[in-house]
């Protein structure tokens, strides 16, 4: 055992072993490919993962309820504003009918 260790410490044997180890040829443009893979791994989420994230948000009960409430509120507000405009126009026409004959309008 001790003899074996002495053999591996021998610089001549180590040099011979280094020479004997075959280094395979790298494919062409190997460094560029490595960098491209690194960049792809660090890139932001793809469209599929973005969709998953949105759907996950929508499926959270609290967020889903908040979204429904917001849409209800916006719809109600828009409807009320539109209804007020329609009612105002109706009242205006009501007054106009009482002061201006239809033949003059």
């Amino acid at each position, binding site marked *: 055992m001790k003899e074996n260790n002495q053999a591996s410490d021998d610089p001549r044997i180590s040099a011979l072993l280094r020479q004997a180890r075959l280094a395979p040829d790298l494919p062409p443009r190997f460094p560029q490919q490595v960098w491209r893979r690194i960049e792809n791994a660090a890139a932001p989420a793809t469209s*599929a993962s973005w*969709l998953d994230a949105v*759907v996950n948000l929508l*499926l959270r009960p609290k967020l889903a309820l908040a979204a429904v409430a917001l849409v209800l509120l916006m719809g109600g507000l828009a409807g009320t504003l539109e*209804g007020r405009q329609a009612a105002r126009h109706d009242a205006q026409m009501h007054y106009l009918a009482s002061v201006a*004959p239809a*033949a003059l309008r």
Partner: protein
Amino acid sequence: MNRPGIILVGALALGVAIFAGSYYTARQATVACCSRPADDLSWLRTEFHLSDADLARIRELHAGYQPKCAAFCAKIAAKQSELDAVLDGGTNSTAEARLKLDELAALRAQCQANMLQHFVAVSQVMPPDQGRRYLAEMKRLTLGHHEQFEHSMSGETGHEQHH
């Protein structure tokens, strides 16, 4: 389509349905609540921010004006019937039709003058800036249509008219 896509489309459709439903309900409720006022003058009160005293004075003017307006309406309707009868009578009644048209135009002019006089009287009861706005609005609603029609018939635009 994959599952997240289906969920997203479904959620969007549900959102549109909820928005449309709440919009329609709110609109109908507002129109039902605030439309078709029993009082002819409710629009004046809200639109021109009138006080009770102003509104009471305008109500008197309105009550005094309405019989005159109704009388003009009746005269105009009668004259219109006469004109229709002449026009239905045949093609040899140009002179008589012209006479009826002149009489009808004179009646309409008198009615318009009476109406404008009433608008001026009402505007004078209001605060000055509201009165000016009321007069402009009444002019637009009652005479504006005729002006637009005449401009379109003469082929002029409104802007050219001012130069």
